[in-house]
Structure formats: structure tokens, C-alpha cells
């Protein structure tokens, strides 16, 4: 029987939740890396036992952790455990994220600060790790301040794909309230040269040459907080999702507005439809139904919690515009949590499972595509990210 493994990153450590295909009885393991912020953890599609973790701390900075046995043991890539390292310069620097300063990268030295002045790029943390679809040793990292890095040696060393910051629009990028993070990385399963990324607050970008050059793909986005609401860059994109069978179709939860493109980002249109509020952070797509979407509406940019204290997932089965609330098993009152941008995932079992985590420390699961929900855990630290592996 198939199994699922849910990888949960929280403010104070990582947790691994596992169950068989029924998804009723759960085994909870953790905390791993107790006391550290785990922004994201994700398994390799090419080797499910390979899991990458972004471990970070205001005191000690950024670390990368890796498991090669499905989460039983962890190590910093290329680092010895107790052994005395060999003499000579190190061959692995797994937590070094150095911005590209080469001419070819055309690096930018400044971006827009909160007060409109220009500010130098400063590395803070890794927000998102995206393993290659085909090579367990290749993994991408989206970082704050926004940039894209890649490792081809299992996370031992990282190089920036400098063409993204070299696009030329960097001075117009700016941090959102949570920082200026590159939070979404989508690898096109049909075209290994195509990658989509998204940044708060710059917008979405696409490369068609494996990361050498990039173009902003924000036509159709309108952001009222910007001096020019339909500008090429500057939009606060919260998350983007794709169904792997239709890589040209993307769905976006923007700061406000749920958006859709059918032409790989060349143009977007709003599909918020009858949502009670179109502010939110997460968005995801059903594993087998490319027109079935999930969002969690949040009251507003000023009040990051569900409307009326009722936690509800909204589902569209028509690719947007028509939405239905899904509430069975979710709190019906007094619920004032948030669901952060990387905290929803779907499994690929026949009955698609949907998972999301809250800032209140709950992780909810649905084994029937959202019809009903149950909490796997109630009282974890605030959940930053949720990913699921179907094994």
C-alpha cells in the first residue's frame, strides 16, 4: 500500500508525519533541529529518501541539512560528524550563499528599501528549496534578499544564478512585510530549460535557458499599493502553483487577487470570482484535476486571519471564478490563525490528499480532496511550510 510522508517546517523545528494510504493513523516524529526555524523542507522527486532542509536562526545564520534515508538521519552536506576533517581547504561550504559579483551575472548592488531609498543586497536566509525533478544532487534555493541559487553536488556548494538579479529591474524590487524573499520555484516537467520563480515584492519571472536570462511575467497583475499599479515589476506575489500535466497554466495567490495564466505567464487574468476575500497566501492544484484549485482566504492585508474566525479552504473546480467553501472538520469559530505561503501541499494518491499547516501549530489533512478535514497534530510551533511525499 502507498504511504505518505508530510514534511513540516516550523518556527522551532522540523516534524515528519507519516501514514499509510488511508491517511487516518499518523506517526509523528520530531522535533528535528529543535529550536531552529525550519523555513522549508522538501524531498527529491528523483529519490524520495533524499530530503533537503533549510535551517535558520537569527543567532547563527543559515544552515542546510540533508537526509539520505527518508528523514531517519540528517547531516550538513559534505560535513563530517565527529571525525577530524582532513587538512587543507574545505571542499564543502553548504551554508555559504555568496551573491554573484561577476560581470556575467550583471549583479545588482541595490534594491528598493521600505522608505523608497536604495539598499544593498544582504543574504538573510533560504526560504524555499526545490530539488531537481531528475537529479537528486541538483537543488535550487530561493533566498532572502531575493536571489536564486543552485547546487549540483547535493547541497555541498551553492552558486547564484546571477542572471535573475541581472535582469535590470532590481532597483524596483522591494521587501514585503516579511522581507524580500524568493519563495516560489517551479520546474517545468516538460521543458528542463524552463523555470518559474516568484518574489515578494517583485513579481513572477521565467527563464527559458536554464537560468541564464530571465523575463518578468507580470502582465495583467494590478497592485494598488504601487505608484503604477500595472508596472512590470514590484508586485507582491504570495505563491504560484502549477499542475505538472499543464506546465503553461499557472495559478497565483497575489497579495490581493487570485490570478491565472494559460500562456506561461505572458498574460494573467483574475479568477477571484466569488471568494469572500481574495487576500491570502497559499494556493495549490489538485494532483489529478488540473482545474481544481485550493486557497485559504484571509481577511485582509491588515488582519491576517480567516473571516469571522472560521477556518475555511475554498475550492474551485473550474479553474477559478467559482469557489466553494470547505469547512467539514475545520474550526467553525474563534479561529485566528494564518496559513503561510508554503504551508499547503497535495499528495498524488488516487483520492488526492490535501494538507495545510497554520501559524497556530495545527496541520490539517484531507484524504478526500478537501471534502472533510482532520487535524494530524494540534500543537506544533507555528507552521512555516508543508510538503508531502507520496511513497
Amino acid at each position, binding site marked *: 500500500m502507498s504511504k505518505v510522508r508530510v514534511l513540516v517546517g516550523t518556527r522551532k523545528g522540523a516534524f515528519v508525519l507519516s501514514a499509510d494510504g488511508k491517511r487516518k493513523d499518523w506517526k509523528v516524529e520530531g522535533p528535528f533541529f529543535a529550536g531552529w526555524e525550519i523555513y522549508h523542507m522538501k524531498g527529491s522527486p528523483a529519490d524520495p529518501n533524499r530530503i533537503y532542509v533549510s535551517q535558520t536562526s537569527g543567532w547563527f545564520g*543559515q*544552515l542546510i541539512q540533508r537526509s539520505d534515508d527518508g528523514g531517519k538521519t540528517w547531516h*550538513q552536506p559534505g560535513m563530517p*560528524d565527529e571525525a577530524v576533517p582532513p587538512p587543507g581547504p574545505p571542499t*564543502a561550504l553548504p551554508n555559504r550563499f555568496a551573491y554573484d559579483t561577476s560581470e556575467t551575472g550583471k549583479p545588482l548592488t541595490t534594491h528598493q528599501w521600505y522608505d523608497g531609498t536604495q539598499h544593498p543586497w544582504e543574504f538573510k536566509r533560504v526560504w524555499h528549496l526545490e530539488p531537481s525533478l531528475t537529479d537528486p544532487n541538483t537543488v535550487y534555493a530561493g533566498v532572502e534578499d531575493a536571489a536564486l541559487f543552485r547546487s549540483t553536488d547535493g547541497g555541498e556548494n551553492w552558486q547564484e544564478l546571477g542572471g535573475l538579479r541581472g535582469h535590470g529591474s532590481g532597483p524596483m524590487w522591494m521587501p514585503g512585510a516579511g522581507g524580500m524573499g524568493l519563495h516560489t520555484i517551479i520546474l517545468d516537467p516538460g521543458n528542463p530549460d524552463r523555470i518559474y520563480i516568484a518574489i515578494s515584492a517583485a513579481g513572477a519571472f521565467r527563464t527559458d535557458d536554464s537560468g541564464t536570462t530571465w523575463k518578468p511575467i507580470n502582465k495583467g497583475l494590478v497592485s494598488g499599493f504601487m505608484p503604477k499599479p500595472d508596472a512590470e515589476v514590484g508586485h507582491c506575489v504570495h505563491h504560484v502553483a502549477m499542475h505538472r500535466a499543464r506546465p503553461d497554466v499557472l495559478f497565483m495567490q497575489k497579495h490581493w487577487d487570485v490570478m491565472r495564466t494559460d500562456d506561461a505567464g505572458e498574460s494573467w487574468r483574475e479568477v477571484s470570482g466569488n471568494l469572500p476575500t481574495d487576500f491570502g497566501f497559499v494556493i495549490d492544484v489538485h494532483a489529478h484535476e488540473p482545474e481544481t484549485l485550493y486557497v485559504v482566504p484571509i481577511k485582509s492585508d491588515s488582519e491576517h486571519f480567516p473571516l469571522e474566525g472560521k477556518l475555511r479552504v475554498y475550492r474551485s473546480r473550474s479553474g477559478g471564478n467559482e469557489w466553494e467553501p470547505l469547512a467539514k472538520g475545520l474550526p467553525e469559530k474563534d479561529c485566528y490563525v494564518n496559513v503561510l505561503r508554503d504551508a499547503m501541499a497535495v499528495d498524488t494518491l488516487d483520492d488526492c490528499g490535501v494538507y495545510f499547516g497554520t501559524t497556530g501549530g495545527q496541520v490539517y489533512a484531507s484524504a478526500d480532496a478537501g471534502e472533510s478535514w482532520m487535524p494530524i497534530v494540534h500543537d506544533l510551533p507555528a507552521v512555516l511550510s508543508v510538503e508531502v511525499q507520496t511513497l
Partner: protein
Amino acid sequence: MTMGESSKAEGAGTVRVALPYHLRNLAHVTGDVEVEAAPPVTVRSVLDALEARYPMLRGTIRDYSTGQRRVFLRFFACEEDWSLESVDKPLPEAIAKGKEPLLILGAIAGG
């Protein structure tokens, strides 16, 4: 002061370092560590030796991009705050001879 698994030496150049909890975990040690620091023994030479012996600590005490002490960490030697001293200033003899540990402390902050 709790002494850990490596409390053997007091010879010149063998320096004891007391790490904060999370860095002890990263380094897979349970108490103070000992490193052979190049003379003259300074904060820089101790950290260089520490990172060479425990490479998993690279970047956790000194920022990779600036080489500077991370802002929420501080260095104490013989009950004095050395955080703002030059990293090339020779440390007290008691530190250099391993009689007292160099303390690396994390700020008491956060939730």
C-alpha cells in the same frame, strides 16, 4: 564551568572554547571544545582553529559575507566582554594557556 569530553590539555596554544547549546549540537560535542590556536592567541586565531576542526560551524559565528561576528553573539574572556575588541588583539594568558575558556554566548532574546 562544565568541562566536556576534551579537557585534557593545558599547554600553550591549546585553547578551550565554550560554545552555546545549538553550536555544541552542530559540532556533535557535549562540553567545552579544545583547539590548537596559532600564536599569538587571538579571537581570530581561535575561531580559525575552531572552524578548521569543526567545519560545520563555519558561518555560524562569523558571517560568511562580512567575516564579522554575528550580531546576536558575544565573546567573553576572563569575565570581560571582548566582543567589540579587535579580533587580532592577543587574548589574556589564561585563555591562551587553556586555563580559562573563551566563551561564545548567544543573546538572550527571541520567543
